[in-house]
């Protein structure tokens, strides 16, 4: 995908001051609010408005909303794609709240509502009117539906809500998120490089820094994953070992989030993913960097890296607890779901779900990257197709499916030709989950081939006045062929 010697120039930066915990309260109470709304949506459908069960759930919503407003001074529920934001904080989806999130997103979407601000103290009556209207939406375009709902609220004398259609995150927030993602990515690559270099020099690296960078990646993925996923396109040939580990960590954590893992589970998964190839630090560099085919002996040495990784993880310093999960992931990430693959095992075992996740992320990043023994990487779309249809790959099909849902038909960084004959790089999956083949793209050359930098963002779900799509992908292309350095557009 990228030029073989591409390396993004780097600039040093002073330590940044970061903040944590500011969104803890918002997440906790926001989640309570959504669960209360979900409960009310159900009871409102089952019982008349004056039923005590309905009243109780509505009172609960009003109480939570009022307390929240008093403390935070604003309360805004925003639905964007598959995410729900309370104020600027993205709420976390996990397997326990899957149903409630899904229901609320679908109700908001049906009603054409992307935004609901609670302006002042609300009462049970305000909420029952709002929720009832939300569940019987008018027809039309999202903007019209949201407007109609706002009008109905006003007609009912409800003034505590401000309703708006779906909207994008503002540029300033996006820029902030991008900067944070770049910092996290850079730190992660640096730490991974340090760790692998330490192992090669026979030293015992410290696990403390690894934990810290994984914490950063988890925070980033939970708050805004698009920027960090975009940086996985920085597939630097020279730094492959390090960037690959970081990319696998990013993909794994993002996939884990999609599968509903909790924050601490993502952390465990992230440490395992970042360290999955640590055993390669014990493989001689001349084998790792060898172009062309490997001899049988060399291949055997490469195939030893999963179990060597287990041994290496025992050498890490500063471990309060032995990273058992990371060891299991290191050992199993080249195993198939039927437990064939390598390395060989003797005792009965079952493959961990974390290993299955890392195996998918690892395969995807490896196959789409240029390496010493893979000069022509596959396109992301081809890799996804192969993982899905070829059972010999031995991937867990549910995990593969979730991964495809995460990255879309056209994963971030894919170069595409549009029907306008503009070239574009896939920037992010579409906020509309159903529009799987219409991602957000960055147009990087106009229809006459003039290269644009940094390019222009475009939403492929956008329609022209006639109702047709403004732009459609007609072809996937190879960036190398056009001298395009994908990473340049994501930093």
């Amino acid at each position, binding site marked *: 995908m990228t030029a073989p010697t591409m390396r993004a*120039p*780097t600039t040093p*930066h002073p330590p940044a*001051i*970061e903040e*944590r*915990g500011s969104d*803890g*309260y918002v*997440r*906790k*109470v926001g989640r309570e609010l959504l669960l209360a709304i979900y409960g009310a949506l159900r009871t409102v459908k089952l019982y008349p408005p004056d039923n005590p069960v309905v009243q109780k759930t509505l009172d609960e919503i009003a109480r939570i909303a009022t307390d929240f407003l008093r403390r935070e001074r604003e309360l805004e529920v925003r639905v964007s794609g598959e995410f729900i934001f309370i104020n600027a904080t993205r709420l976390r989806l996990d*397997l326990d709240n*899957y149903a409630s999130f899904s229901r609320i997103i679908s109700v908001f979407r049906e009603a054409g509502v992307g935004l609901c601000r609670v302006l002042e103290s609300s009462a049970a009556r305000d909420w029952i009117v709002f929720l009832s209207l939300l569940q019987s939406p008018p027809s039309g375009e999202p903007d019209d539906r949201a407007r109609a709902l706002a009008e109905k609220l006003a007609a009912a004398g409800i003034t505590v809500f401000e309703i708006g259609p779906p909207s994008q995150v503002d540029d300033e927030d996006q820029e*902030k998120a991008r*900067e*944070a993602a*770049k*910092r996290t990515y*850079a*730190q992660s*690559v*640096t730490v991974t490089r340090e760790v692998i270099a330490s192992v090669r020099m026979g030293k015992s690296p410290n696990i*403390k820094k690894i*934990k*810290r960078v994984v914490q950063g990646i988890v925070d980033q993925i939970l708050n805004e994953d698009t920027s960090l996923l975009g940086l996985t396109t920085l597939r630097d040939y020279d730094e492959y070992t390090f960037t690959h580990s970081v990319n696998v960590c990013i993909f794994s954590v993002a996939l884990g989030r999609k*599968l*509903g893992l909790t924050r601490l589970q993502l*952390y465990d998964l992230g440490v395992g993913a970042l360290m999955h190839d640590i055993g390669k630090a014990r493989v001689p560099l001349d084998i790792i960097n060898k172009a062309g085919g490997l001899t049988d002996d060399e291949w055997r040495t490469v195939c030893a890296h999963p*179990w060597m990784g*287990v041994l290496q993880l025992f050498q890490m*310093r*500063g471990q309060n607890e*032995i990273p*058992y999960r990371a*060891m*299991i992931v290191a050992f199993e990430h080249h195993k198939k779901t039927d437990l064939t693959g390598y390395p060989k*095992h003797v005792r009965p075992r*079952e493959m*961990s*779900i*974390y290993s299955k996740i890392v195996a998918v992320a690892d395969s995807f990043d490896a196959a789409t990257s240029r390496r010493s023994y893979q000069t022509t990487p596959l396109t992301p*779309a081809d890799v996804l*197709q192969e993982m899905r249809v070829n059972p010999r790959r031995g991937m867990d099909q*549910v995990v593969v499916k979730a991964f495809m*849902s995460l990255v*879309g*038909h056209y994963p971030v960084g894919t170069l595409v*030709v549009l029907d306008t004959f503009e070239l574009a790089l896939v920037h992010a999956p579409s906020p509309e989950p159903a529009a*799987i*083949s219409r991602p957000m793209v960055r147009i990087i050359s106009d229809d006459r*081939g*003039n*290269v644009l930098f940094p390019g222009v963002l475009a939403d492929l779900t956008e329609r022209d006045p006639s109702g047709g799509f403004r732009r459609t992908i007609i*072809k996937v*292309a190879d960036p190398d062929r*056009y001298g395009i*350095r994908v*990473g340049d*557009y994501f930093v």
Partner: protein
Amino acid sequence: MSVSLPTSTPIAAEASELPDAPVSPQLIEELLRHFARAIKTHQLYLPNNPIYQRAIENLRGAFAAIWPSIGEVVLQISESEFRWLGRSVLHEPSRADSLPWVFYKDGIRELTFMQGVEGEELVVLLDILQRVRKTSPEEDDLLTLLWEQEFAYLRYRFIDISMDTAAIPQASEAAAESRTIPLVEVRHEVEEEQQEADRPGFVRLEEMDGTLYFLDEQEIEYLRAEVHKEQSADLRRNVLAILLDIFEVQGTAAVRTEVVGIFEHLLLHLLAAADYAAVAYLLREAVAIRERLPDLSPEARERLARLPEGLSGPTVLPQLLQALDDAQTIPPQEDLDALFQQLLPSTLGTVLGWLKQAQNRELRTALERTAARMASVNTAELIRLIAAEDVTVALEAMRRAAELKTAAAVAPLAKVLASGPLEARQGAAQALTEIASPGAMRALEAALDDADRDVRVTAVRALGARGHRAALPKVEAVVTGKAVRDADLTEKMAYFEAYALLAGSTGIEQLDGLLNGRSMLLRRRIDPETRACAAMALGRIGSEAALAALRRASDDKDVRVRSAINRALRGGAA
């Protein structure tokens, strides 16, 4: 997320320049004093201790005093100071035990307590601060520990000191260069592909079913089950299995040496984590591997063998047993059994010593089973322990030898019986009684001369019960001699009963003489207890001649003698 904040401590402003404080700074100072005190008590006392509870209540009270006026307390942190609204509210110049330093050294520059922190999160925070004070620089710092808890009412700003060398990636200079991509080829290719796409059977990616990408209920359930399985999985056991597999499959000496080294290290971790099932698994597999791998180097073989040896060491095993006895919850019985099964026979003494010492009933039960198993397979060690200096161990060894009726134990038991300390002699007599072999009887016969009454009683009862007639002369000498007069009733009864059992009808004359005496004077010289015992012995013999002797004395003047005679005649002596 990144925010702008001065990296240096704000310089103390003149008091007149400071903003008005919404509450008295003394209240914040008081709050921090209580905070510091609560951290110390959290370190020193258990949660149910009244001192600890009072410290927490005081801290909660200090928060309660300020919440009506302010919703949050934002503290700026320097090396030695907490500042609130520009005012110093806690100053601790010495780094030792300094609270500001605990935060500052790990990069935290601002701490905000929000209303609500005084609830459950307070204790979590105290716990983290206690942990971080004890950790070495190599271990998790405050930032990492705080991250692991998702606080809703605690906010902090920090500088990540360890991450200052990373460089932010930038776009290459060539990216912004003006250039044109020749699109002719692209158009041509698109046209070609379009024609191909029109052919039947060609699938366009866009036409793929979008629902393929969304998880259905069944798939979500599958994932939920997988995650649940992962969370409840025995990770240690899993990694142990991996290491054992590596050891077996990767046959090089270097790898095996490294893995054994890990086993040695891991064993201590597993013990510290009280994962005794995993310890047992490792030790069991280590034995199995030694048997399964004929090509194992002598060094690897020896180091594997040393794993259970290490656990069985004289300093290690008592610690393990102490830890088990101290544990609030004892491991499942099968785990204990599995663990103790791996102990070397040489640990029998330690295990025996703990049988009386252990406070925990379940532990004692498991140890009993272990002791029984070890004793049964290791007679030599058992016999050696009969002479142990630790009398508790020696007595347990004797008890085990008795249960097993170990003939080889007779000689050491006899030795102990002849010259051991009192408690050991008593145990030996008891053990010999249970073993009851001819050798044991001979040893007991010798014990009739023991200085201790209990030893003599045990011995004479055993000799009588087993019909060891060789002891009859000695028993008869006692029964008819003067020594018996000084004995207590129990010992007298034991001797007379044994005499009856050993002598049978041949003893009637002696017993009759003692009971009925030829003259009143003689009868008076024999104490009533002895005569009563003679009556009981005659009853035990039970022959017509013996009963006749009893009847002759049936109107004896002494009530104790009459009572004994009546019982004997009714068969009560039997």
